[in-house]
């Protein structure tokens, strides 16, 4: 594992290299690239060219006809995805995006400017798919495809978190995330990928979730939280699994089932659903909201997404509620309907408690738990005691995909402000649609990539530091499981006094449940404000 430099040891150099970009090659320095995909995981997913290989080797063991494969793949993508052809043709290299990328800000490497990341692919497109490029070559920004280009693609398409902040600033609306997605699609044709993406995708394909939690273990873990809730407020919750005929199927990232602090958010879901008496079920088959297929290729994304809907149909539910997951919502909003839809065996979601019909989910039949909860609060259906979060001074990180793929800005803030008394937003140019990425999304949340994660997370951390210094913020809330996994080490690195939470953990703290015993702690067992003096025994 690469050693992670301390914050004061990081060097930020914004001087461009001496040579023209086409003549500059990436240096595979430890901490800036992820381990390659393992053969066993590629085999599970049926991906081409499974083998043992290393980015540090001269020979990446590409198939002998690799060039043909790439050209054929590009042709195929250009025909299938009109957006790609448009994005390849219309960029005028104005540079509006160049300083908007967290990885550029954190690394100073010009190839992390979204415009130049796009050029890595565009230059090959020009050379072989445009007349100007064919004739004028380098003068027209075209270059020959060779193995060095493939290595450079690997390095930089796995230094992009597909967060789409750059696309907000592009006057043409070019979606650089989609260019990265296509780049990874092409690389996967050669068997060039990373194991932190392939491993979870393979687990999900085999066991229903990224962690590889088997059904009996999944049930065991949820039941652990049932006991934990009972210890906090005396309420015994009885969740059901794979129950046919339930009204709602609930799907959340498996990270929430396994890893702190997401586990507390999961307790919040359980408490909320119990209190309103929702007729819902968990599934041990569709036990993953996330979709690392999105970070692999379209085919894998489609396969992994399909099981959610297959399970909804099998159980005969009316619709799906999705948990606090990030990229799941990009898959649902942008791809699901034409990929595995229409889900016409489901009904347009209608809250059984308030009667609200969620027309926005008319085609996907899947609503976000935060909009569901916001609607409950707006209709006065929840008894809340926000003072139970008074020990927390909260800000909100707009998780990239719900923000930029769903336009989901106000519902989370509405919920937070109803369950917390102390809330401050970060400055306007780094929240809502301009939100800065956690620096570890799109399957880059692995330890060997830690230096780049800390660099890429710097702009987000810097904004948190601002509200920490100004308002004493000590809790960063978010609605994405990758966020909940990666923001704690990012905060430890840059803003050590700030902890991380999901929104429904805050709901779980504030919700007043019928028949509950006196609450003295939050869900983490920390004393509520005014209860600090009670001894461990009293608690």
């Amino acid at each position, binding site marked *: 594992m690469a050693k992670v430099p301390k914050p004061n040891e990081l060097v930020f150099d914004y001087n461009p290299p001496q040579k023209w970009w086409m003549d500059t090659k990436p240096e595979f320095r430890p901490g800036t690239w992820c381990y390659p995909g393992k053969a066993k995981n590629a085999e599970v997913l049926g991906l081409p060219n499974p083998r043992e290989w290393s980015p540090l080797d001269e020979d990446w063991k590409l198939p002998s006809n690799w060039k043909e494969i790439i050209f054929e793949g590009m042709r195929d993508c250009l025909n299938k995805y009109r957006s790609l052809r448009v994005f390849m043709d219309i960029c005028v290299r104005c540079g509006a995006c160049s300083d908007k990328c967290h990885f550029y800000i954190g690394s100073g490497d010009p190839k992390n400017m979204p415009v130049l990341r796009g050029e890595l692919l565009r230059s090959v497109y020009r050379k072989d798919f445009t007349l100007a490029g064919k004739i004028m070559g380098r003068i027209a920004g075209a270059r020959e495809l060779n193995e060095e280009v493939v290595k450079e693609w690997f390095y930089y398409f796995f230094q992009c978190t597909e967060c789409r902040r750059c696309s907000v600033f592009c006057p043409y609306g070019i979606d650089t995330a989609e260019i990265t997605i296509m780049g990874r699609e092409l690389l996967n044709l050669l068997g060039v990928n990373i194991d932190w993406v392939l491993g*979870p995708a393979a687990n999900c394909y085999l066991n229903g*979730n990224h962690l590889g*939690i088997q059904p009996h273990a999944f049930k*065991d873990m949820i039941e652990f939280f049932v006991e934990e809730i009972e210890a906090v407020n005396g309420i015994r919750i009885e969740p059901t699994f794979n129950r046919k005929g339930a009204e709602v199927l609930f799907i959340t990232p498996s990270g929430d089932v396994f890893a702190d602090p997401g586990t507390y958010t999961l307790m919040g879901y359980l408490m909320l659903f119990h209190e309103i008496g929702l007729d819902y079920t968990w599934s041990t088959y569709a036990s993953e909201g996330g979709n690392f297929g999105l970070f692999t290729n379209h085919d894998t994304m489609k396969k992994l997404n399909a099981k959610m809907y297959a399970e909804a149909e099998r159980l005969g539910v009316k619709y799906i509620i999705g948990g606090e997951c990030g990229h799941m919502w990009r898959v649902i909003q942008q791809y699901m309907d034409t990929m595995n839809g229409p889900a016409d065996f489901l009904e347009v979601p209608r809250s059984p408690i308030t009667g609200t019909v969620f027309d926005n989910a008319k085609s996907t039949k899947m609503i976000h738990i935060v909009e569901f909860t916001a609607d409950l609060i707006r209709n006065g259906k929840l008894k809340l005691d926000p003072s139970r979060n008074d020990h927390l001074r909260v800000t909100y990180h707009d998780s990239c995909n719900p923000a930029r793929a769903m336009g989901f800005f106000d519902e989370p803030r509405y919920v937070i402000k109803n369950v917390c008394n102390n809330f401050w937003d970060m400055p306007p140019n780094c929240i809502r649609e301009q939100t800065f990425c956690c620096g570890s999304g799109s399957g880059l949340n692995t330890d*060997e990539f830690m230096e780049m994660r800390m660099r890429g997370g710097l702009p987000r951390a810097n904004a948190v530091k601002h509200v920490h210094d100004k308002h004493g913020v000590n809790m960063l809330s978010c609605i994405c499981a990758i966020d909940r*996994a990666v923001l704690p080490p990012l905060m430890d690195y840059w803003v050590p006094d700030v902890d991380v939470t999901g929104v429904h953990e805050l709901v779980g703290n504030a919700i007043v449940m019928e028949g509950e015993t006196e609450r003295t702690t939050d869900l983490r067992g920390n004393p509520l404000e005014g209860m600090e003096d009670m001894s461990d025994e009293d608690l």
Partner: protein
Amino acid sequence: MATVEFKGKTFEIDEDGFITSFDQWNEDWVDYVKESEGISELTEEHWKVIHVLQDYYKKHGIAPMVRILTKVTGYKLKYIYELFPSGPGKGACKMAGLPKPTGCV
């Protein structure tokens, strides 16, 4: 895949020095790893954590979540970090021969 030899036994390991399958595990492995994990002497408490991890893994096919580990052992997380300086996931799981958890973790 890299291998290490120790006390006449061969272990296949991944990039981070985890053994690639649990069935390779034996007590010599713990002995081999302890030094690089900054542990000079293995105590009963180390073994208790290792055994809890392994028992859970054998039953469930995955490492227990940290909250289950702390509850079953009765050790606070801070204390587990004192026992295994690189933490329950990296240090203790590595010594117990369990694979690293993957996904949104």
